[in-house]
């Protein structure tokens, strides 16, 4: 029983860490209808940015703050340079564009800063968190707390004036234009916010497993999270993350020894498939009605 509980708790914590990556995808999809396949690479770049700034002598929290600014600007730049020319193109083009960006960054980051995994010390310590007879990873716990905070912040943000504009843009581009909302700016801001999420994700995942190109692999669980939760739902990202994390921890905990490993990817794939076949718009996503 305690084994199960331990898997459950650790899975939930991991899942919340996934939510942090997924939140970036949700923010972008919500404003522009683009599914950002490069979020994993952005997370990696966020991790690299924090690492590089600490290398230059900044204390870790200051480095994270500076990286937030850097990645916000980076997000704005991506929107300005790449996405703006793609308005109105078919979906495959935009998907491929973000995949191309993913490939490019996967070469760019490690190429610039070296391939060996970088240690990122956020001062949490390696000793596990002991709750009764359950051991939990302290870094993951801090990451989960940050993820919760980010989700709450995102929810609050969408109640502000700017957030209302973003919601309007997510509903309908043309109507937003007609009432004087700058759609381009809203989309750019959502990319910037995704950059901020990427820094949070990159820092915490980097602290948990080191910063290197393997952080881009976070994209796959994050995509599963947003599919399950609904691509345009922030709450969905949170709950989807919890579910994916728990399933991806409990099932491999019991099955891995039988079939020889890496069941986690299978669980993630199956969740994606079943969600799409049963309820394509996810748990909290908006169902689009199509007209000819």
């Amino acid at each position: 029983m305690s084994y199960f509980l331990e898997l459950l708790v650790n899975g939930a914590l991991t899942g919340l860490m996934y939510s942090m990556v997924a939140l970036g995808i949700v923010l972008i999809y919500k404003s522009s209808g683009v599914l950002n396949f490069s979020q994993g690479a952005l997370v990696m770049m966020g991790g690299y940015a924090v690492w590089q700034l600490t290398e230059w002598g900044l204390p870790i929290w200051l480095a994270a703050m500076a990286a937030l600014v850097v990645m916000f600007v980076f997000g704005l730049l991506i929107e300005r340079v790449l996405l703006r020319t793609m308005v109105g193109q078919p979906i495959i083009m935009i998907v491929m564009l973000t995949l191309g960006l993913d490939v490019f960054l996967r070469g760019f980051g490690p190429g610039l800063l070296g391939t060996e995994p970088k240690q990122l010390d956020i001062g949490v310590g390696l000793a596990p968190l002991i709750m009764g007879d359950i051991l939990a990873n302290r870094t993951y716990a801090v990451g989960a707390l940050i993820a919760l905070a980010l989700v709450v912040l995102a929810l609050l943000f969408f109640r502000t004036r700017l957030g209302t504009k973003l919601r309007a843009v997510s509903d309908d581009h043309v109507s937003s234009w007609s009432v004087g909302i700058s759609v381009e700016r809203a989309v750019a801001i959502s990319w910037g916010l995704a950059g901020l999420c990427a820094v949070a994700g990159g820092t915490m995942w980097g602290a948990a497993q080191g910063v290197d190109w393997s952080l881009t692999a976070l994209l796959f669980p994050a995509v599963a999270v947003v599919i399950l939760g609904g691509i345009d739902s922030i709450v969905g990202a949170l709950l989807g993350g919890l579910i994916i994390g728990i399933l991806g921890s409990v099932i491999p905990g019991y099955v891995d020894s039988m079939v020889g490993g890496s069941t986690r990817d299978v669980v993630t794939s199956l969740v994606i498939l079943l969600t799409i076949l049963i309820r394509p718009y996810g748990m909290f996503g908006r169902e689009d009605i199509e007209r000819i």
Partner: protein
Amino acid sequence: MFYRLSGVHHTRYSQTRQLWPIPADRWQVGILLVLALAAPLYMSQLYLSSYMLPWLIFSTATLSLTLLMGMAGQLHFGFAAVMAIGAYTSIHLTRFGVPLELALLCAGLMSAVIGCLFGAAALRVKGLYLVMATLAMQFLVDWVIVNVTAISGGAVATLQTPKVRFLFVPLESLAARYYLALAWMVVVTLLILNIKRTSLGRALVAVRDKDFAAAVIGVNIFRYKLLAFFVSSFLGGVTGAILAFCFYKAVTPSQFNFDVTIQLVAMALVGGLGSVIGGFLGAGFVLLVPIVLLNLIAWLAGTGWLSISTSMMAHIPLMLYGAMIIGFLLFEPLGLAKIYDNARKYLLVWPFRHTQS
């Protein structure tokens, strides 16, 4: 110039409806075919085996994907998995002593049946969600191949292709393997070229442009979407088997992972979605240009014009490849085929400037 239209008068319907109504096009295709047939005579073994052969096979794979993505409009991000199914099926069958001709057919059928499972998702969702569903299936197939040791022999194991003969010719020499790949390429190319002119092709295009509208005018979208997945996966499966037997000669699961899928989609997009010549141009571009540019940069670094760290050097192909995808999408979304088409249209009316067709 090359495309002289004066004096070309078609007097029968069959003449205007042939594949290449303009003589210059026929000449070009003929010359290219002769060049391809004679390639083992004038090309060194190295060029033939490491540039020409993969180009041919990946062009064929891109054409199979074009049928699905360019003509039927169904996005597929699991095509490498489909090819893997074909490759593994054919290898296991030939190991049991089934002749290669039959094994290729079975490989195609096996891929087609499993590919139709991918297609089952397409009946319910489209666009972005179809990308996700096929992507998930890619990971599932990958996992099954890696973890079922009866199929792959484990994650790091390689499976040698057995010695086989195709139509009584042993597939030992490079030339024999090259000609098999070439023959399959010609078959697939002719098929794709001609599908566009049949009712099937027109139905697929209708489904691509707007599936509800196609249903309204009486196209059975259920049937045609599945058919598109079936045919395309069949071709992909056989191509996977050809890839295993003619090029790799030993397969590992990592030769068919998600990165290969991205590569195939990139080939289709860089070439130009839905065009046949785009399949060839795109495959060649994606396969060869990073190598050429890397050599150029290495040469520049060697002469001291440019100083790059070794880790940067190792990652430059990846960066070039990503930048290439982005560049094409931004500056020429219709791909290399459009560039070729523009040049051809310019030459058609040269020395005048206004195109008619």
